[in-house]
């Protein structure tokens, strides 16, 4: 299956990709498995979305899909069907901060 992922602009620059990318996955898509696949395909992103050691999501990033915030879900919770079947992308969003 192909999973669509949208990165924040700075990470698109690092990964040399456009506004949306697709990941080929053979395992059920979860936050963890999508990030594993993303980092395998774009290793320059290692450490930018989740900490190298703890694997925790960086505090100023969020995971949105289908109009919902999945950031506080378990990383092993299956993503929505619309993401699995490619209808909707997984959005990795940088917090708007600074006033």
């Amino acid at each position: 299956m192909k999973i669509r992922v949208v990165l924040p602009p700075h990470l698109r620059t690092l990964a040399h990709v456009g506004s949306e990318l697709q990941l080929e996955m053979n395992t059920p898509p979860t936050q963890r498995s999508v990030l594993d696949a993303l980092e395998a395909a774009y290793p320059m992103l290692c450490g930018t979305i989740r900490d190298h050691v703890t694997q925790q999501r960086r505090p100023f990033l969020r995971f949105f899909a289908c109009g919902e915030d999945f950031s506080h879900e378990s990383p092993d919770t299956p993503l929505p069907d619309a993401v699995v079947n490619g209808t909707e992308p997984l959005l990795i969003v940088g917090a708007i901060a600074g006033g």
Partner: protein
Amino acid sequence: MSRVRVLAGTRKGAFILTADGKRDQWDITGPHFAGWELYHLKGSSADPNRLYASQSSGWFGQIIQRSDDGGKTWFQPGTPPGEATTGPGGMPKGESNKFLYDTSAQTGKPLTTHQWYDGTQHPWEFKRVWHLEPSPDNPDVVYAGVEDAALFRSNDGGKSWQELSGLRGHGTGPKWQPGAGGMCLHTIVLDRQHPGRIYTAISAAGAFRSDDHGANWRPINKGLHSQYIPDPTAEVGHCVHHVAASPRKDLLFMQKHWDVMRSDNGGDSWSEVSGNLPTDFGFVIDVHAHEPETVYVVPIKSDGEHFPLDGKLRVFRSRSGGNEWQELSKGLPEKNCYVNVLRDAMCVDNLDSCGIYFGTTGGQVYVSPDGGDHWSAIVHDLPPVLSVEVQTLP
């Protein structure tokens, strides 16, 4: 004619400023890594086209960047654009961003906590790279000073990093605590006259020295006096802001939180040389490339007011190794100037007429091509400048 290349790291990207030896007409490129904080960039003296950059962000963490063509193009070491994303043996690239503290049973297990602001013990947590120091002999060897304070070394051009854990592990580590800017290892001096000798400085722990390529370390803070800690002459706990090496063997200068200091014995002991400075608080300090006793500082009003006295931006120069300081102001703002000059934002070139450079939090980068007598702004309106380094090119 020789040229100079100035590498300016700012809050919103990096800028490269180049000029010929006159240093009066400048070409400026950037922003490189637009939108990211560039705490430090530095070129290798073994290969001037080899540059290293520390790119970081509160959102996305730490990235190491490298250029092999003098800053025209950049890549993350080990992950050049268009190449395979795994290395030989299937090892994933992207290792260049990974700074893992030593947790090995042999050397790393005891290195678990340092002192926190409230006096309790706190785990070491990697945040960013403050300073990159390339080896003068090998362009693929580079050191990184990081927050929380530790020293790392790469032997493969920045592709992978290993901690020199003898620094954190020599015994005083649990007493280190963060300064207002975090607990950062911000100064790395590779002593060219003592092979294998490395100096580091940490806020707020002090200065440290290794004589065996970073394997073993000891504090070198004898003579420092810090009234803001319970024991003003403690072995560690001093907020050293920067250390600069003189061309003369064993001669070092230090800008401490308060006090300008010198050491004539490689840091074994220090003496205060603040002399007639109007205030001895500040961040930067540097030494003339050819005159071992000529030192430069930028006095800042106080630790509570990080701007020049009376709104006048002035560099002070001592030609006697301290104590007697001369105000240098020609070409610098005479009024209404309330910028700061951060600890890595001053440098000197190696031309016969030594050039002095510094950057401000107001976005100016100043140059004096005549050792400080006359100053002019290369640029006025960059983002806040975090670091300034210069390369002297053939």
